[in-house]
């Protein structure tokens, strides 16, 4: 009891147990809405952005893109969504390729 459990995420930058104090605070004051998505969702978003826009997002950012696409379906064509791409995905291509080929770590 009280020990920190190990975590899993396809994205190395999210694969740790813990939430920083700034995020905790922003959530508590309801300034930010936090959403989650699965490894599958993130990979799908990674592939779509790469194919459609030629932009390879970092797997961390791919999580945001996945939610952005979900949200877009509920919004009007005239409305705009801004997504911050926090990093580039060339560092992740090997992980993504292995995942798509079915070799998970």
């Amino acid at each position, binding site marked *: *009891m*009280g*020990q*920190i459990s190990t975590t899993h995420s396809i994205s190395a930058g999210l694969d740790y147990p813990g939430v920083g104090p700034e995020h905790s605070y922003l959530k508590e004051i309801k300034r930010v809405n936090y959403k989650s998505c699965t490894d599958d969702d993130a990979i799908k978003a990674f592939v779509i952005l790469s194919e459609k826009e030629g932009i390879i997002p970092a797997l961390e950012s791919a999580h945001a893109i996945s939610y952005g696409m979900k949200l877009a379906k509920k919004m009007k064509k005239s409305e705009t969504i801004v997504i911050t791409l926090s990093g580039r995905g060339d560092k992740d291509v090997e992980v993504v390729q292995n995942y798509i080929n079915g070799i998970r770590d």
Partner: protein
Amino acid sequence: MYKSNSVSKKKNRIDNKFNELKSKNEKALICYVVAGYPDIMTSEHIITSLINGGADIIEIGIPFSDPIADGSTIQYAIQNSLISGTTPCMCLELASRIRKTFPNIPLIIMTYSNILYRKGYIQFAKKAKESGIDGFIIPDIPIEESKEYLNTMQNIGMSTIFLVSPNTSEKRLKMISRICTGFLYAISVYGTTGERQGFDEYTIESIKRVKNITADKIPLAVGFGISNPQHVKYMIDAGADAVIIGSAIIKKIIKEIENKERLLNTLNRFIYELKNSCR
């Protein structure tokens, strides 16, 4: 006599021990063990041999998965203890067995905040009190976040020992020494626990600086990297009222793990020699 800190009303075994040693003109030898390494039963024998060797105060380490203040030696022992299934509850049961054999020896829990937080500060503190624990060292509770912890512990007469390091500012040092009870834990070096070859001049300066602020309001214990009688003497000459030995004990346990009888004799002799340097 140490002047009682304004926040602590009741005296406990730690305060009594420091006053007793002061009247004998001795310094305290504080010994740390990781509970459950190599196993709980052996921990009990190890602690017994440390006390018989001359340890004045025992720190029982409850193993935690992310021990951020600890160096590789203690991390190794903690990991092994967790793998073998040690729980906080087993550690408190160990404490109560030690308490039965040694009614007056101060027992302190050293662990990390999650262990207490998960069970609830009040519940954990009560259980610890029943097990004969006199105080806590929780290196990852900063003073800014310590209100609930402090209230809980001080309500039941538990000492709350805080750490200061060579780069703790003077302002912060004063704040910490106001809320710290039992003794103040001064880290001798930059970095984590673990044996060092020797100490730099800054260690001495740091101890003197802390001592200047705490004066005789609260005993000053120095720890991290102390592994032989010369180190003990060095810290005491600089102004320490107590020295804390941790990794050096664990190293001896790792080395003699195959031969329990020899291990217990080695520890007993090691502590006897260290305690001689405290007189």
